[in-house]
């Protein structure tokens, strides 16, 4: 187990490095000049050149990357070009909100996806199965912007049950988390349904029934536990992607998460901020996957890491 964790950690470092190299190269390949964006519209060519050299943007790309990396290992992500503030401060100010939305989103995904998927599997090919799966499909494919505005308009504006977006209390979390849950829950339902269908005809389920166990117990304890394996990997993935920010939902609900930060930074080619968000997302994704891998043995004793 220990060896496995160390190996995975080393892999994460390599992935992280690779991600920074690629992003760095892509950002500099962009046909947009951050020095010009900072210099503004009234700048003379002189001013632009001075700013470029102040930022070290006149150096060759490998030199710039080496400098970035040297700062990164010391935990210094640089200063935002636009906001002139430490990127670590910017990220820190948004991590908590991102974390809560990640938790809330995954909770709703599970809350919606698992029961729906199980019901569909147990009543396979029934009208209920089909309508549930169509519903799941709609949830997945509905544009989040529209879903979000719809929820806000009815539940918050018309009925006044929730605040109109914002951050600060548990009440603020419910709608954005629910909007995420609707989209992701559809995927979970489909995965859960097919996993349940796989499991339900296995010998051990038949054995459990043969032992005379009640149907609820058979489903919940014997079948569901095994069907949960793919769900766990999905949760691992979602931890990663949600921690990297969910731009649309954050925007609609005025949720001060990392996605909004990334979106604004991309508009103005604020390279240090974009890089910072990429590093955080890459970290989150590798961590999420690691957590999922570590959770498998808890569900299925057959899985062991040596």
């Amino acid at each position, binding site marked *: 187990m220990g060896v496995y964790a160390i190996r995975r950690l080393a892999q994460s470092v390599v992935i992280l490095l690779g991600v920074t190299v690629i992003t760095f190269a892509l950002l500099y390949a962009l046909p947009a000049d951050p020095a010009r964006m900072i210099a503004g519209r009234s*700048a003379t060519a002189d001013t*632009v050149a001075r700013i470029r050299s102040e930022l070290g943007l006149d150096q060759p790309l490998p030199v710039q990357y080496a400098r970035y990396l040297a700062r990164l290992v010391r935990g210094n992500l640089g200063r935002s070009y636009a906001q002139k*503030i430490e990127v670590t401060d910017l990220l820190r100010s948004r991590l908590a909100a991102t974390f809560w939305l990640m938790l809330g989103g995954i909770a709703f995904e599970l809350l919606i996806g698992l029961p729906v998927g199980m019901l569909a599997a147990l009543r396979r090919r029934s009208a209920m199965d089909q309508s549930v799966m169509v519903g799941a499909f709609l949830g997945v494919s509905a544009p989040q912007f529209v879903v979000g505005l719809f929820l806000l308009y009815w539940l918050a504006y018309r009925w006044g049950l929730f605040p109109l977006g914002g*951050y600060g209390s548990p009440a603020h979390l419910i709608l954005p988390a629910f909007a995420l849950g609707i989209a992701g829950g559809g995927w979970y339902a489909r995965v859960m349904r097919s996993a349940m269908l796989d499991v339900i005809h296995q010998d051990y389920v038949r054995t459990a029934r043969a032992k005379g166990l009640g149907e609820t117990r058979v489903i919940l304890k014997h079948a569901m536990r095994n069907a949960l394996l793919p769900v766990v990997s999905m949760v691992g993935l979602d931890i990663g992607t949600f921690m990297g920010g969910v731009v649309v939902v954050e925007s609609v609900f005025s949720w001060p998460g990392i996605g909004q930060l990334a979106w604004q930074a991309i*508009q103005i080619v604020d390279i240090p901020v974009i890089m910072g968000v990429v590093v955080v997302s890459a970290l989150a994704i590798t961590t999420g996957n690691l957590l999922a891998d570590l959770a498998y043995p808890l569900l299925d004793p057959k899985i062991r890491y040596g």
Partner: protein
Amino acid sequence: MRQGWIGLAALVGLALLASLVAPTWGQNRGDSMIVTFKDDISTLDPAIGYDWQNWSIIKSIFDGLMDYEPGTTKLVPHLAESFTVSADGKSYTFKLRRGVKFHNGREVTAADVKYSLERTLNPKTQSPGAGFFGDIAGTKEFADGKAKEVSGIKTADKYTIAFTLSKPNAAFLHILALNFAHVVPKEEVEKTGADFGHKPVGTGAFKVKEWVLGQRLVLARNPDYFVKGRPYLEEIVFQVGVEPNVAFLKLQRGEVDILGDGIPPAEFTKVMNDAKLRALVAVGDQLQTGYVTINTQVKPFTDVRVRRAVNMAIDKQRIIRIINNRAVPAVQVLPPLMPGYDKEYKGYVFDVAQAKKLLAEAGYPSGFSTVLYANNTDPNPRIAQAIQQDLAAIGIKAELKTLAQSTVIEAGGTKGQAPLLWSGGMAWIADYPDPNDFYWPILSCASLSPGTWNWAWYCNQRVEKMVEEADALVQASQAAAREAKYRDIYRAVMQDAPWIPIFHEKRYTMHTVRIGGSPLLFNDPIHIPVHYTEVRVVQ
């Protein structure tokens, strides 16, 4: 089955709980005002902040030697008590108002004015405004590190500051009213270093009370503000990260007072047709022109007949309908509010036959192919399509390139790259209300170099000379002569047709009934969306 119901029950339960836990939103805010913005507020450092959003916030925290009468473009001394201009227009001397204090309690002196300007001019500050002050003697030597101070800025005594210019500039007082010339206290800048933009200390009507990144900025009234009786408001809260559609709902419920990003386009028609909502909207003009730049260095636009032909080919009324009539058609470079605007000038009238005739004369009877760049955010692609169709009607096949704003800016500033460029999203809004701000940065020979905003790559030395002559008319008594000269200048520019002026956008500021003051304040030409120091709570 039961599982599903449990989930649903939990949801309903949470919802009910939420309504109990939730604070009372809005209501009873006292003398406080809430403004919403979609984007974060970037730095509040007056030497650096240069977007329409932080521009007027900075103005409410800092002050300059000069300012404008609220709601107008009329210059008035501000931190200065009085000033004199030499006959040749090259020396300006200002007497400072005494007893003005920074938020930290220290009195403002002439040395602070000099320090603040030199800070803007120092390349280490990376100020986007440094270029505005190029006419002050000795700025280049200072920026290049060859001089320790700017020779053209001198403090005669504690309350007197004098500027020497290398050439006269009739807009110099406007330039001193720019945020980049606002006064900052040296000791606070040195204490906070690069974080000054987030811990700003000025002399202004408001000070920063609280700033939660990504959520809100709270300004509180400065009780020691030197303008008597100002500001009216005790507090201004800027909520950031609020989608305009949601802000619109919040305003209708009275939770917020001002839509910083304006009325969401999708709701515009509904608002203007609903008497109750319409009453909350202040309509006014702004110093803005939206235009297509015609690259005068790219064939066949090197031929002025072709440039005039495309000017005649565009149906501006149709484009204005695309944006719900939120603009008036433009026939010239300057917007109507700008001194020097020519009421008599009719420009190139929409006339397809005449356009075709001109094209034929230029040797393109069956048109040609070209490329039109545009910003990819709505409504700009739709406007670009309308332009594309109009060009097709005279035989010009324009390929559309709708790209991210930063990429379009880069293309415009790259020699020989963008033959046509629709400026929407980046249209020129005056930095200061003087006609030379529409010339020097975007149409001058001085700005004819890569990376500037002279996207037409236009340079006419004869016009440049006329502008220099006009800018030498610095005395107040010469204002009318200078305006007349500028009318000639922009007629000459339009004769060369480096632009297709399309429209001047109007401003629609939506606010709750509790916020009032003179209607001018809600469409202040300098302060967007409103003049924070002058508006008040009326209900």
